[in-house]
């Protein structure tokens, strides 16, 4: 059955842009009948101006008309052989298909050619395979704007209690089964609310009703429309923008015999799905039949409905799906392969079904530097490269390699943080005194640090948003950066410290002041000796304690630490939308606020109650979270930033460090100046489905 392509069809990308715009600008319509295209057509003109509010990349997308579909030769062969339906039956029609025309920076894409594979380094941890393949509910551009991705569009009621997701009619799972509202209800009621996916804690779908946790009510309106209903208003920051809420679907047709109804995973009453009645043993046996090896239902559930990209055979909606061929079907295999999804629902502007390349190959390496050798040999196409290797590699490889720069959203580099909730009152009081932090900051010669640690590559800076990021402020970046030993010493004396006979300051009660910096996995081995000499020169005795990452976490969790240096969960990030926890003490997540975060996370049951400016941060965060007005939210965020600027709870010595990639010049459509951040899914922003290889 060949669908006629409507020449008036408006690109879904445009729909995406405008429905986002709509969200930012007006109250949004509660009626789920609007298709994205219609919405786009009617609202585009009046809403374009608002797009600038969070960036205008989305509105740069051009209207694209798809006149028909084309497919990769390898798929055409299968169609000819009768083993695969025609492309028109595999992808959604022109009104529902996603037309990809620009990259995440807004630059237009080339129309590619089919074939070849992209060779990458090791797949890495649990999330490694997801980075180049995951398709999430929404997708971000580098300027922070976003658009619906897997879903066709979303709307919310005026009071923000009802959110509607419109799906793409005709969209299929990677095994050819239709992707419908049932897959959403199945995920929610059978996988998520049962905690089968281990993530029932997601704040996006949770709210507080009468002091108790309550979860959204999900309704299937029709096969391609669902609504999420909350009792209280659920604002974008808490819902669609919540970084955890990346997907809300699971392949019901595949997983239904893998869900138990047991003591630990009891059936959750709902109108769409009945209890499977399966015991945990039966479920594990069924998993075994599907070649999924799991020891416990907890492992199984997390594998198939959370880190599903790691399990061969589980249908997905990604451009690439894990191979089922033994030896290539695990991220731990020496060569792990992700093959083209023949049912992928995105096309380029010319109607060519994406992805362009046949497969992604992940090549296991066991040592740093091997990837560089393999890149030079042409065995790997993309690598992350250290600054020091760039010049030599490019000189050797000439035009056959090119450089890509990734911006960082970090607030400076070489951050140090103190434990403001240290059980020793001497330390807690000292750290709470801003003069102490200023002394620790101005007591270090940043120019010299830059030379010693980065060959002058990273300029002196402070724990502040980098240029080009939300909240950039040159004054902030320069605050407390002037090197001044005498002033540092007088500030320390102003904190009540007393110089001891050994040349180091002591607390007023005569007890020793010793800043033991925790670091993990050798992260501060190189930098600590440099900083040590400065700290000691201003009379601060210090030491470095390097731990394995697990031991480091344990020390922090136990509040058994004084200060940290090197990589740690630092303050900063793209914006509160990216992930709020690094900015405000609301979780057991970041070192700079120690036990204050535990207090919020446990609703006061544990931890230390924040006071003063820290309490103000929490207050502002709650306001930010519970507001729909974009301007107001920006204002709250700005206030939070201002408090950070005043306090500088963490100190950074140099500007933020991005990272660099070398790619083979054969790769086309590989965007430059992307931004590495959690909400952007790191390298997911590259959009691997549009990459192609050509001389």
């Amino acid at each position, binding site marked *: 059955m060949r669908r006629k392509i409507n020449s008036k069809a408006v690109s879904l990308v445009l729909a995406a842009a405008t429905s986002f715009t709509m969200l930012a600008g007006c109250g949004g319509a509660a009626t789920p009948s609007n298709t994205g295209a219609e919405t786009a057509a009617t609202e585009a003109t009046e809403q374009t101006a608002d797009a600038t509010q969070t960036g205008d990349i989305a509105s740069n997308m051009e209207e694209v008309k798809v006149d028909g579909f084309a497919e990769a030769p390898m798929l055409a062969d299968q169609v000819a052989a009768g083993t695969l339906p025609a492309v028109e039956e595999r992808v959604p029609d022109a009104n529902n298909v996603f037309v990809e025309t620009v990259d995440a920076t807004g630059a237009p894409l080339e129309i590619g050619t089919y074939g070849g594979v992209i060779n990458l380094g090791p797949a890495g941890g649990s999330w490694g395979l997801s980075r180049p393949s995951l398709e999430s509910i929404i997708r971000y551009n580098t300027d922070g704007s976003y658009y619906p991705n897997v879903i066709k569009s979303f709307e919310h009621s005026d009071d923000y209690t009802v959110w509607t997701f419109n799906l793409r009619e005709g969209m299929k799972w990677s095994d050819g089964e239709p992707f419908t509202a049932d897959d959403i209800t199945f995920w929610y009621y059978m996988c998520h609310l049962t905690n089968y996916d281990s993530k029932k804690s997601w704040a996006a779908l949770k709210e507080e009703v009468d002091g108790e946790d309550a979860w959204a009510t999900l309704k299937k309106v029709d096969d391609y429309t669902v609504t999420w209903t909350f009792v209280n208003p659920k604002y974008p920051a808490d819902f669609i923008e919540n970084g955890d809420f990346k997907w809300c679907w699971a392949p019901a047709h595949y997983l239904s015999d893998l869900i138990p109804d047991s003591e630990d995973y009891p059936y959750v009453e709902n109108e769409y799905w009945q209890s499977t009645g399966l015991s945990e*043993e039966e479920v594990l046996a069924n998993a075994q039949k599907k070649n999924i090896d799991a020891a*416990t239902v907890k492992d199984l559930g997390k594998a198939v409905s959370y880190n599903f990209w790691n399990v061969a055979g589980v249908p997905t909606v990604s451009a690439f799906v894990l191979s089922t061929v033994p030896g290539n079907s695990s991220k731990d295999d020496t060569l792990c392969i992700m093959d083209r999804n023949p049912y992928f629902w995105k096309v380029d502007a010319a109607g060519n079904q994406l992805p362009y390349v046949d497969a992604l190959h992940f090549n296991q390496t066991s040592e740093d530097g*091997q990837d560089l050798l393999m890149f030079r040999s042409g065995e790997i196409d993309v690598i992350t490269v250290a600054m020091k290797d760039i010049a030599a590699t490019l000189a050797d490889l000439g035009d056959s390699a090119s450089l890509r720069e990734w911006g960082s959203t970090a607030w400076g580099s070489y951050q140090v943080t103190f434990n403001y909730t240290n059980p020793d009152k001497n330390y807690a009081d000292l750290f709470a005194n801003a003069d102490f932090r200023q002394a620790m900051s101005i007591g270090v010669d940043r120019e010299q640090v830059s030379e010693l640690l980065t060959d002058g590559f990273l300029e002196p800076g402070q724990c502040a948003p980098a240029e080009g990021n939300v909240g950039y402020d040159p004054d902030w970046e320069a605050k407390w950066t002037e090197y001044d030993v005498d002033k540092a010493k007088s500030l320390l004396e102003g904190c009540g410290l007393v110089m001891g006979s050994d040349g180091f300051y002591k607390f007023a009660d005569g007890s020793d002041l010793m800043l033991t910096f925790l670091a993990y996995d050798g992260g501060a081995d190189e930098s600590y000796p440099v900083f040590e000499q400065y700290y000691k020169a201003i009379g601060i005795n210090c030491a470095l304690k390097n731990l394995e990452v697990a031991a480091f976490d344990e020390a922090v969790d136990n509040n058994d630490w004084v200060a940290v240096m090197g990589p740690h969960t630092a303050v900063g990030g793209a914006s509160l939308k990216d992930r709020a926890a690094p900015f405000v003490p609301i979780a057991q997540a970041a070192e700079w606020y120690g036990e204050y975060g535990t207090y919020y996370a446990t609703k006061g049951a544990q931890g230390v109650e924040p006071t003063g400016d820290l309490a103000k941060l929490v207050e502002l965060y709650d306001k930010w979270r519970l507001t729909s007005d974009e301007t107001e939210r920006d204002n709250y965020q700005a206030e939070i930033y201002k408090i950070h600027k005043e306090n500088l709870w963490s100190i950074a010595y140099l500007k933020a460090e991005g990272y660099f990639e070398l790619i083979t010049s054969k790769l086309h459509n590989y965007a430059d100046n992307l931004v590495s951040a959690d909400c952007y899914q790191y390298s997911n922003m590259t959009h691997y489905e549009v990459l192609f290889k050509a001389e």
Partner: protein
Amino acid sequence: MEEKLSKNSFVENLKEFFRRDLVQYIFKRILWFIPTLLLISILVFFVIQLPPGDYVSAHIAALATEGELVDADYAASMREDYGLDLPVWQQYIKWVKDIIWTPSDTAYYRLYHSHHNWKYSFAYGRDVWSVVNDRLGLTIGVTAIIMLFQYLVSIPIAVYASTHQYSVGDYVSAIIGFLGTAIPNFILAIVLMYLSYKWTGNANVGLFTQEMLKNGIHLYNFGDFLKRMIIPIIVIGTSGTCGIIRSVRAQMLDEVAKQYTLTARAKGVSEGKIIMKYCFRAAINPTVSGLGGVLSSLFSGSTVTAMVLNMQIQGPVLYKALQSQDMYLAGAIVMVQAVLVVIGVLFSDIALAFLDPRIRYSGGGR
């Protein structure tokens, strides 16, 4: 005639050898395996547990670096599932019991292990034996080839060097041997990879090409596989050869100066026979007694070099398991190594007795 005689004497030797109280000895030695291995297992288990934290904390820390936050409830229930919340001695007993007695793929296994699995690799999410098995064939194959290379190269050189003491050949072999030992394996590996890259444009990282990993090793690409073996063989092979060359050479020099050699020579026994039948047999003694570790290294391969060369053998798996505190996997690998060492030592003792009739196991002279 002479050949027949020597064949007869070999059979005689063999008979003689087994007439001794060897069977009893072997039996006794095998009984001793039990306390030895028990002791080793205790040591292994507790040493692996020594670092602070456990797999769950290591796993959660790793997830955090990927941006995934895990709540405390989940961590606690994971510990409960994996039994990490039990006292260490209980964990130990269960571990030993399961690792030895629980058969996989039976209904009992599934039922029992759905909640408490003690031979489960957390990181790989499956049975430890299946993880070990994945790389076993390759590890044995690669290591065997390398060892064969070591002995085939070093023993003839040693014999030559001892019979041509202070000759140019002796010095050259000594220099190469010492260099091989003195240069750390991983540096040699890096240098060779660099040279390979410079000369051929390919660093030959890893044992297989992508094509082999996708399609398997067949006759048509076996040549490529052998090419990839060159660097590992040179690197690992040369590291062991010097030791063998020096010890065999020194022993040989001892033996050729002994009375029996002089006597044999005076009686007109051919030089080749003196060297090979008498001197060499005695000189090889220390090398054979060193074979105890061979089985174990066949199993694990050379860890550091394997990592530098990106070889997909057992060593790096153990390293990673220790790093991520995947303790049952690490424990299983170390235990297998221990068992193999114990068995290897037994074999080498038996071989020694066979080589040198003067060695007795039953106590008392004859």
